[in-house]
């Protein structure tokens, strides 16, 4: 066979800028998400240091506003979601026995959009006008009247990053529907893949809402529109609806994949099939649906009226049902299992009670009259940190320790891992458990300091000490990663005695994943083969040449284009003190230049077909063995 298309293959930095391999994109997401996690964590430390003592003057009030805004925004959009995208890129195609994702190019584009959106937002720290209207950016606080340039960084940065999430979601929906190996019916899909499927569906239907919200806010701020300007007929509550129609589903975009990780880890380390698999699938789908029905529980005190409040109260409480199903299924999976307490499993098993506390406070908050008391106090802060840190972050840590060997071919150090776990676990509960009581005692959220003698001193001190412990845990994890990466590759294909397909191929996987597409013969496809006495998976096809997509720099260039255009719009009407600056930037030239870069890249992508290249069977053998 003649494969005449020769494809340029890159090395070093260019390899990373042009890669369309989902496993490498996973690593990009991991590095960038990890970086932003560190940034957000640093911001959190500063917040807690300021609140350590009453009447503290460690940071100024205005800086404090900037810190809480950037902390929340960074953690949700630039750390949480990307780290989940890292796991889903690393794992989902392998779990469904695919050679690739449906749209490798779009996958790379999604990453670079997220990355440049995040960079844009954080450049505000260097420009000196930082977003300061809270991660929810409610108008009128977020309007020009009350907020500076910083909110523009929030709006534009989120818009670009959000685009990346949206196309990432579409990519995984199509991948999961169209690319499953023969025999893998929906009801044979591993639970992690299921949760990614539903989370991607939520992304698809939730993100366009925030896209519109951000456009409206941007038009108000830059072009004098009146969506939220009360004096001109606008309505700030409209923002709250749009934001939470997106915002509530968003928290389930975060937590469902964590549920998926926990399901995999619990069943692997109990050496048992997941208890109640089909009810788990059902619960996942139900949560996905309900997540769109309850947004107004963030708006009980706005004045929607008793009927609306009651309806949204009840709808919110309903979510506890499928969540409860999940909790019991995990417990029953452990029950009678042969349990191994690896670091991954420590995080998973402690996830369960921790998340239950977050769920219980959620149900308390869903009682509208009670919410009038709790709302905007530290009780809410405690609730969402129990769900997001105790849920999402525990889940991500469990997933990282579990899949690290698959991603990098190296085992993280278990002893250091356990140090990380205990510091993080204890630090977490110290930090946030006391915040429930602070809230009940009336400490409002988002205040930069408090007076002596209100009875809040001890709890705040404890909370800060706990936060420092989580900081130590993160540093130990970083050391672990460094030490591990200096050692030679030591991971087997299947270090944990795994059950799903990703453990059937070498660690790290070769770039084509499966030399031969596997034939799936049951739930927990690899386990089925192990039970049948087979060493490895049964192939569904003979060995042949494998078609691969070619690398491309266009996703990177296109994202740079968006980045430049974003800046251009933000400063087009800005009053510069310096004449040269206003000549260069004080007009729409920069914005148009950025958009031209985007359009030209799209044009090139459309006109030049990507023929990709082939890996021949002879090459396969050696790569498969070596990697």
């Amino acid at each position, binding site marked *: 066979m003649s494969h005449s298309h020769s494809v340029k293959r890159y090395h070093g930095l260019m390899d990373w800028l042009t890669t369309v391999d989902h496993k490498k994109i996973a690593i990009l997401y991991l590095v960038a998400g990890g970086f932003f996690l560190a940034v957000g964590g640093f911001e959190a430390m500063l917040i807690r240091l300021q609140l350590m003592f009453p009447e503290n003057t460690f940071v100024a009030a205005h800086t404090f506003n900037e810190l809480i805004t950037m902390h929340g925004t960074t953690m949700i959009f630039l750390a949480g979601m990307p780290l989940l995208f890292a796991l889903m890129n690393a794992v989902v195609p392998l779990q469904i026995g695919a050679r690739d994702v449906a749209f490798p190019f779009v996958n790379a584009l999604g990453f670079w959009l997220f990355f440049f959106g995040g960079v844009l937002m954080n450049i505000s720290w260097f420009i000196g006008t930082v977003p300061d209207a809270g991660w929810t950016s409610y108008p009128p606080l977020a309007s020009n009247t009350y907020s500076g340039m910083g909110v523009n960084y929030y709006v534009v940065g989120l818009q670009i990053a959000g685009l990346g999430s949206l196309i990432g979601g579409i990519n995984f929906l199509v991948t999961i529907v169209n690319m499953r190996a023969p025999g893998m019916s929906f009801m044979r899909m591993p639970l992690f893949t299921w949760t990614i499927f539903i989370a991607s569906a939520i992304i698809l239907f939730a993100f366009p809402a925030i896209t519109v919200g951000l456009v409206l806010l941007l038009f108000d701020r830059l072009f*004098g529109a009146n969506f939220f300007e009360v004096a001109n007929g606008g309505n700030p509550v*409209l923002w709250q609806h749009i934001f939470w129609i997106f915002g509530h589903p968003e928290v389930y975009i975060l937590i469902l994949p964590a549920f998926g990780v926990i399901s995999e880890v619990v069943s692997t380390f109990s050496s048992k099939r997941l208890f109640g698999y089909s009810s788990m699938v059902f619960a996942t789908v139900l949560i996905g649906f309900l997540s769109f029905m309850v947004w107004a529980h963030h708006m009980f005190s706005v004045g929607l009226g008793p009927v609306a409040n009651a309806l949204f109260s009840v709808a919110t409480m309903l979510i506890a049902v499928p969540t409860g199903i999940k909790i019991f299924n995990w417990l029953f999976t452990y029950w009678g299992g042969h349990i191994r307490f690896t670091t991954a499993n420590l995080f998973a098993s402690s996830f369960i009670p921790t998340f239950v506390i977050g769920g219980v406070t959620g149900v308390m908050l869903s009682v509208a009259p009670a919410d009038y008391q709790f709302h905007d106090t530290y009780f809410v802060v405690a609730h969402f940190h129990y769900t997001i840190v105790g849920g999402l972050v525990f889940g991500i840590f469990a997933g990282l320790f579990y899949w690290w060997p698959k991603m990098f071919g190296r085992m993280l150090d278990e002893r250091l891992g356990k140090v990380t776990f205990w510091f993080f676990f204890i630090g977490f509960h110290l930090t946030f458990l006391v915040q429930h009581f602070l809230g009940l005692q009336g400490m409002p959220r988002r205040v930069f300091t408090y007076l002596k003698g209100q009875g809040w001193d001890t709890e705040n001190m404890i909370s800060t000490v706990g936060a420092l412990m989580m900081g130590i845990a993160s540093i130990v994890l970083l050391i672990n990663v460094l030490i591990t990466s200096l050692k030679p590759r030591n991971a087997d294909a299947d270090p944990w005695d795994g059950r799903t397909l990703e453990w059937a191929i070498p660690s790290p996987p070769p770039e084509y994943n499966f030399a031969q597409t596997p034939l799936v013969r049951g739930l927990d496809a690899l386990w089925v083969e192990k039970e049948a006495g087979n060493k490895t998976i049964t192939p569904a096809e003979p060995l042949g040449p494998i078609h691969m997509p070619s690398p491309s720099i266009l996703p990177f260039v296109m994202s740079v284009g968006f980045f430049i255009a974003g800046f251009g719009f933000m400063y087009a009407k800005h009053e510069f003190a310096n004449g040269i600056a206003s000549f260069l930037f004080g007009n729409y030239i920069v914005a148009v230049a950025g958009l031209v870069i985007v359009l030209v890249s799209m044009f090139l992508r459309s006109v030049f077909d990507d023929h990709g290249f082939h890996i021949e069977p002879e090459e396969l053998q050696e790569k498969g063995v070596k990697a």
Partner: protein
Amino acid sequence: MSSHADSHGHGGALPEYPEKATLEGRNKLLGFWFFLGGESVLFGSLFATFIALRGQVLDGPSPHELFNLATVALATFILLTSSLTSVFAVQGLHRHNVKTIQMWLAVTVVLGLAFLGLEIYEFNEYVREGHKFTTSAFSSSFYTLVGFHGGHVLFGVLWIGLLMAQLVKKGLTVVTAPKIYVAALYWHFVDLVWVFIFTVVYLMGKVG
């Protein structure tokens, strides 16, 4: 899993449904349907915004004074016709007849441009009557909703134009076929959104 010839699309006769003959093509179609799901939420949010704010006209002209139904009806007729002509193009696709495809795509593009021309004319008139983007919450939401749709039409025109050029260069293959099919889907969607705009913005503005 796609075989060699599959993913390249040169050589051999075209299959009956060239747009879904390859896995790449099927992925593209399904991905595009999902994309349209997202677009529905996008326009849904814009509609909700418009409905919430359409009463807030302040000192500016009200929808009733403003809208000229004759122009809008003509624009509607043009756009709906263009949906039909894009169907003819897809029929050409299934008959593997490049000439038919090109002709009907050309008609579609021309109709799209005519629609855009009418819209620009209409917006100009409104601004002259004191209905500026910054006049009121109603005006901001009107221009944003209708303008977003107009932007979609413009994008569609450029896109289909580009596909016509590709068709000249590459002919009808399993690579170009899904692109044309998907562009036609997009065009139907944009027309469908217009039907809602015609009803919710114009008819309800005139009557309600």
